[in-house]
C-alpha cells in the first residue's frame, strides 16, 4: 500500500507543477508586451504599470517563475487589482460556497441516479428502464444554464415554491465562520436561518445535478446488468437465496465500484457546471468571482483562481484514488 501511495504522489507532483507552469506561461507568452495586452487598449500608462507590477512582469522570465512558485508554495496569491484585497482570503470566501453547491448537487445526483439506474437494470424492458434511459439521454443533452432558468420560471415564479435567486434572503445576517453557508447557518443555532439557506440551495443543486445524475444512472444500470449476469450471482440464486438478498448483499456492492469511479471523475465537471449555475441564480461563488475579475481585467485573480481550483481537483482526485485503493485491493495490486 505504501508503495502505491508513493507511486501515485510521484505521478501527481509533475502534474501539479505542469498546472502551475501552464498558467504562468499563458499570461506571459502573449506576443508583444503582456502588460499592455492584459491592461487593454484603453488603459492608461499608470494602469499598464499597475498590471506589470501586480504580475511581476518587469523581471526576466526565469526569475518571475521562481518567484511565482515560491509565493504559491507559501500560499501567497497576491493582491487583487480590482479590490486591493488579499486574493487568498477572497478565494476562500468564494470557493467554499461553490464546493458546497457541488457537494449538494452530487448528493441529489446520487439519491436519484443510483436507485433509477439499479431499478432500470432489475426491471428490464419495462417503462422503468425506458424512462430512465430516456431521462438520462435528455439529461446529458440539456445545458445546465437553461435548466436553471426553466426551474426558476416553473418552480420559482409560477409555483412560488422556491426563491428566484440568491444564496440567502437579503438582510439575513449569517456570521461567516467557515464560508460554507449551510454550516454557518447551522452554527447560528437558528433553524429558520438554516432552513433559509437550504431553501435557496434546492433549485441550484437540482440544476447542477442533472448531468451527473444522468451519468450515474447510466453507469449504475450497465454495471448492475454486468454483475447480474455473473457466475457468482447465479450461484447465490442457486443456493436458494431470496432475490432481495441477492441484489442487496451480493450484486449491489460490486456494481457500485465503477459508479464510485465515475463519481470521482465528475468533480471537474461539477465545478464547471457550478460556475454557470451560480451565474443563473446570482449566487456567491468562484464563478461570479472570476467573471467579475475578467471584466475588470484583474489578471492576478484570474491566474490565482484557475491555479487553485485546478490544484484542488488534482489533490481531491489523488485522495479519491487512494480511498479506492483502500476499499478495493485489486486497484493497488494492478
Amino acid at each position, binding site marked *: 500500500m505504501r508503495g502505491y501511495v508513493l507511486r501515485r504522489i510521484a505521478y501527481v507532483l509533475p*502534474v501539479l507543477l505542469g498546472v502551475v507552469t501552464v*498558467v504562468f506561461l499563458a499570461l506571459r507568452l502573449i506576443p508583444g508586451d503582456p502588460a499592455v495586452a492584459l491592461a487593454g487598449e484603453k488603459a492608461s500608462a499608470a494602469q499598464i504599470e499597475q498590471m506589470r507590477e501586480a504580475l511581476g512582469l518587469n523581471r526576466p522570465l526565469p526569475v518571475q517563475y521562481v518567484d511565482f512558485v515560491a509565493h504559491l508554495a507559501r500560499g501567497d496569491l497576491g493582491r487583487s487589482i480590482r479590490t486591493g484585497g488579499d486574493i487568498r482570503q477572497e478565494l476562500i470566501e468564494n470557493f467554499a460556497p461553490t464546493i458546497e453547491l457541488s457537494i449538494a448537487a452530487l448528493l441529489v445526483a446520487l439519491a436519484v441516479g443510483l436507485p433509477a439506474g439499479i431499478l432500470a437494470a432489475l426491471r428490464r424492458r419495462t417503462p422503468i428502464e425506458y424512462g430512465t434511459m430516456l431521462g438520462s439521454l435528455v439529461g446529458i443533452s440539456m445545458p445546465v444554464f437553461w435548466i436553471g432558468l426553466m426551474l426558476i420560471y416553473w418552480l420559482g415564479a409560477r409555483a412560488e415554491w422556491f426563491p428566484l435567486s440568491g444564496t440567502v434572503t437579503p438582510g439575513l445576517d449569517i456570521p461567516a465562520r467557515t464560508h460554507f453557508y449551510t454550516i454557518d447557518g447551522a452554527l447560528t443555532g437558528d433553524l429558520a436561518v438554516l432552513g433559509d439557506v437550504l431553501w435557496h440551495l434546492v433549485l441550484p443543486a437540482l440544476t447542477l445535478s442533472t448531468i451527473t445524475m444522468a451519468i450515474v444512472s447510466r453507469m449504475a444500470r450497465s454495471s448492475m446488468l454486468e454483475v447480474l449476469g455473473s457466475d457468482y450471482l447465479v450461484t447465490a440464486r442457486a443456493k436458494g437465496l431470496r432475490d432481495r438478498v441477492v441484489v442487496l448483499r451480493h450484486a449491489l456492492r460490486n456494481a457500485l465500484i465503477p459508479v464510485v469511479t465515475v463519481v470521482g471523475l465528475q468533480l471537474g465537471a461539477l465545478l464547471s457546471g457550478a460556475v454557470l449555475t451560480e451565474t443563473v441564480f446570482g449566487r456567491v461563488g468562484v464563478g461570479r468571482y472570476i467573471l467579475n475579475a475578467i471584466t475588470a481585467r484583474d489578471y492576478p485573480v484570474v491566474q490565482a483562481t484557475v491555479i487553485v481550483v485546478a490544484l484542488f481537483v488534482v489533490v481531491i482526485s489523488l485522495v479519491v484514488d487512494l480511498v479506492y485503493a483502500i476499499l478495493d485491493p485489486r486497484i493497488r495490486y494492478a
Partner: protein
Amino acid sequence: MARASATAVPSTIEGGGRAAPSLWAAARARFMRSGTGKLGAAILLLLGLIAVFAGQVSPYDPVHQDFRIEREPPSAAHLMGTDEFGRDVFSRVVWGARVSLQAGAVAASIALVVGLLLGMSAAYYRGRTDGLVMRAMDVLLSFPYLLLAIGIVAILGPGLLTAMIAIGIVYIPNYARVVRGAVLSVGARDFVEAARAVGARDGRVMWLHVLPNVLAPIIVQTTLNVGTAIIDTAGLSFLGLGTQPPTPDWGNMLSAGRSYIIDSPWIATFPGVAILVTVLAFNLVGDALRDAFDPRLL
C-alpha cells in the same frame, strides 16, 4: 493493406465463399437498423438545412429591432414571440442554428486535428514522446474544462472565434487518449509491421495503415463531442465570453432572456429547446454509431 485489414475474415458459411461485408458496410447496415440513430440523423439533416437556408427559413431579419412589439408572447405573426428589442425570436433561433452548429463543429475539429496528431505520435513513437504528450494531457485534464476555457478566453479576448478555440483546446485530451489507445492496439498488428518492414516511412505507415483502422472510435467521439461543444460554446456565450450581441447565438439569447425569465419566459425557452434538440440528435447518432461499430455492445 489497410483496407484488407479492415475487412472481416471471408465467410464460407454464407454465400458460398463470398467475402463478408466490410467493417464499414456492416456498420452502415447496423446503423440503418437503429431507429433512434436514424431519428437523430434526420434531425441533424433538418437542422443543417435550416442553418444553410436560414435566410429563406426565417420570416424576419434576426437583428431588426422594433420597440413597438417588444416582448410579445408567441403568436401567429411571431411563432416564438419577440425579445426585449422587438426582434423575432424564431428568426433568431433559426440564424442561431448557423452560429451554434458552426461553433460546435469548429471546436470539435480543432480538438480532433490536434488530438489526433498528439495521440498518434504518442502511441507510435512510445517512450519519451508518449510520456511527455500524455503528461501534458493530464495537466490539461486537471483543469475543470469551463474554467480552462474561461482562462483562455480571458487572455485571447471574448468572441466566437476565441470561444471555439478555447473549447477546442479543452477537448484535445479526449481525442489524444482515444486515439492513443486505438493506435496502440493497431500498431502491434502484423500489417503495420509488414509496412515498416518493406521500408514505408513513419508518416506513410501512420496515414495509410494505422489511421484507417482507428477511424471508428474517432468518428464516434467526434459526433458526441460536436454536441457537447455546442453546449459549451453556448455556455461561454451565456457568460458573455463567446458570440457578442447582436449576432444571434443560442447561448447569448439565453443570457439576454435570463433578465426577463419571469415575465417573458419564451425569450429564454426556445433557444434552450433548440440546444436540447440539437445535442440530443448528436447523442442519438453518436450512440447508434458506437453500437454499429462495436456489435458486441448490441
